[in-house]
């Protein structure tokens, strides 16, 4: 009689009913949704009207013109969010700011006798640091006005200037065969996230297996169980039961994160609509469509968030199945070894010693991660992504960049082939250790003799 299904059911149901399982299940998507939503929120957040006083000693920035027909190319231009007001001098500006709570900062452009053109300006603020947008707007305006003054002085017309600055070569990184753009940064980040997810999953669920084994041993229930269940069946039931818990958790994470992300996208439709549109245009443009190239230039002008575009360019149809494969088999490989380590331990504190050899390959990959990030297709990355004990983590780093199919298949085949070997070894250790106590003490005694 085979009792594995009963063991699996117990392992699964006792864990899935724990409060900690559901807290983790709900917290992770909420956190991910926040990470995803914050930049978008920051980009779209309506700003409060900010009033800024300009004290211009040089007169180059429109400081001495008192007429109301200010030319925008030589003055600070107010917008919906930021209103610029001119002040006669710094002292006046300062008194105004003290008196008027609406005024949040002063731009002070100092003039030095030795210089025809001022080289520095200062943004003075009271209480709160002005938001990033305000600071960059002030900076943009300063550069713009200064540039216009210089253009005037050198007799360059606006058209000439537009022609000079508007001509540029656009460098893109693109796959020769598929014609897709690379978006290296986005893929690197995705690779790191996936690699760390696998690493954490193996640790999280592997150590659950180990703790489960130690719990059975230290509570002394194991002898009652092993007279009804073969030790190998007990170990495999536990490993599989916890694998199902892990898969349930990951599915729920993917599902809940998906719902959250789609929700965020729908509520910010404009931003994402344009991103997808641009992505399509990019693909057309690479096929040499003239109209599309023009459209792409127009789209480039729109200055879209690169991240959103990069995410849209990633092939999730490959990444998701590959992720689940390496998650499941990476976990299985390590879980049996964690079970063996647990079987040798009497208490939770012993486990740190016995699990150390098990975790070394995992820690090695994490330490080598920065080197691999530099060159995701380099020799080191290739080797680590094929060797079974490091491949689950290393391969996930490479997958967003695209991995040659033969390497992917080889890595997966080796991982699957190593699993029975590992299980055989782990089962042997498990069977002989599970009813022996004080293995650590006896080991020490032997050494000291």
């Amino acid at each position: 009689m085979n009792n594995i299904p009963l063991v699996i059911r117990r392992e699964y149901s006792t864990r899935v009913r724990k409060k900690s399982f559901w807290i983790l299940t709900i917290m992770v998507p909420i956190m991910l949704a926040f990470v995803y939503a914050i930049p978008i929120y920051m980009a779209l957040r309506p700003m409060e009207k900010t009033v800024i006083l300009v004290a211009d000693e040089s007169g180059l920035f429109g400081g001495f013109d008192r007429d109301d027909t200010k030319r925008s190319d030589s003055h600070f231009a107010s917008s919906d969010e930021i209103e610029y007001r001119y002040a006669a001098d710094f002292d006046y500006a300062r008194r105004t700011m003290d008196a008027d709570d609406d005024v949040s900062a002063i731009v002070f452009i100092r003039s030095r006798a030795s210089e025809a053109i001022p080289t520095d300006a200062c943004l003075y603020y009271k209480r709160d640091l002005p938001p990033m947008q305000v600071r960059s707007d002030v900076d943009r305006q300063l550069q713009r006005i200064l540039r216009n003054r210089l253009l005037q002085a050198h007799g360059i017309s606006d058209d000439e200037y537009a022609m000079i600055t508007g001509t540029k070569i656009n460098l893109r990184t693109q796959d020769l065969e598929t014609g897709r753009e690379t978006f290296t940064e986005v893929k690197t980040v995705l690779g790191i996230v996936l690699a760390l997810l696998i690493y954490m999953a193996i640790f999280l669920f592997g150590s659950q297996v180990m703790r489960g084994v130690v719990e059975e041993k230290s509570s002394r229930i194991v002898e009652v169980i092993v007279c009804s269940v073969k030790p190998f069946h007990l170990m495999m039931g536990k490993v599989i039961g916890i694998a199902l818990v892990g898969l349930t958790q990951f599915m729920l994470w993917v599902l809940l994160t998906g719902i959250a992300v789609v929700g965020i996208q729908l509520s910010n439709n404009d931003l994402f609509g344009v991103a997808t549109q641009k992505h399509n245009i990019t693909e057309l443009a690479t096929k040499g469509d003239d109209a599309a190239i023009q459209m792409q230039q127009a789209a480039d002008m729109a200055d879209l968030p690169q991240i959103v575009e990069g995410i849209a360019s990633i092939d999730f149809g490959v990444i998701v199945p590959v992720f689940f494969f390496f998650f499941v088999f990476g976990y299985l490989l390590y879980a049996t070894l964690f079970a063996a380590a647990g079987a040798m331990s009497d208490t939770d504190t012993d486990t740190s010693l016995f699990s150390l050899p098990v975790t070394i390959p995992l820690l090695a990959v994490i330490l080598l991660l920065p080197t691999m990030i530099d060159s995701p297709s380099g020799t080191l990355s290739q080797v680590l992504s094929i060797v079974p004990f490091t491949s689950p983590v290393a391969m996930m780093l490479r997958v967003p960049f695209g991995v040659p199919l033969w390497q992917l298949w080889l890595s997966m085949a080796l991982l699957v082939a190593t699993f029975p070997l590992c299980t055989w070894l782990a089962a042997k250790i498990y069977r002989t250790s599970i009813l022996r106590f004080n293995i650590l003490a006896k080991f020490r005694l032997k050494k000291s003799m």
Partner: protein
Amino acid sequence: MKLQATNIHKSFGSYKALEDVNISVREGSVFGLLGPNGAGKTTLIRIINRIIRPDQGELLLDGRPITDELVRTIGYLPEERGLYKKMRVGEQAVYLAQLKGLSRQEATARLGRWFRKFDISDWWNRPVEQLSKGMQQKVQFIVTVLHEPSLLIFDEPFSGFDPVNATLLKNEILELRRKGATIILSTHNMASVEELCDDIALINSSHVVLSGSVPQIRKSFSKNIFEVVVDDGKVMQLSPSPGQTGNELLSELMKQHTIISFRELLPSMNDIFVEKVTHNNPEP
């Protein structure tokens, strides 16, 4: 169910846990497995349960080699016994019964009866960690006997029980025997051996050093001392002179006293245990 173990050997590395062990347990009897700590009792019990395999030797249940299927007809209460602390009592008992092959419904029905009998029904939905040690012992006992095994093995069943629960347990064991179960009892408690066991085997340093029925063994260790109570209330302990039988001693006494009682003083199992074990392990 009859159990016959012949020529059992088991070593762990260079350590010999059992050497040429032979025991025979009669159907429907209570068999005491005695011996000091580390003698190899638990190893023998684990071999009977097929938790470990002997290096050598044969084990027959009713004349047939023990298979995994037959192990289901054994109920085993180990010395090192525990429960999943976080699991609820009832759920856990059902799980353990299912591992023994009972259906969920059958297990629940039988557990209901036992829980009422032991007066622990209120604890069904509590996590095990809230139970006192005595209550956990009751649950463990119930789980051991629930699938109505025909061979029961209790390893130190009385350790940790208070006298009330120990008596309860003793009565349950006798009740199980009355219903036809064969029982192996491994214990240090020599009083309970005299009270419960029909036969015993004493294991010391991996060998069976003594076996047989309890009255026989006690008789064979007789020091030939008689206790005599006479009518004036005087109690005497007398040994017959060499060559004299008990009857001859009695008839001699009857000439001088009115005899109220005359009985042979047999050594207790405790004395026999101590004598046998210290004799085998002489102090260096």
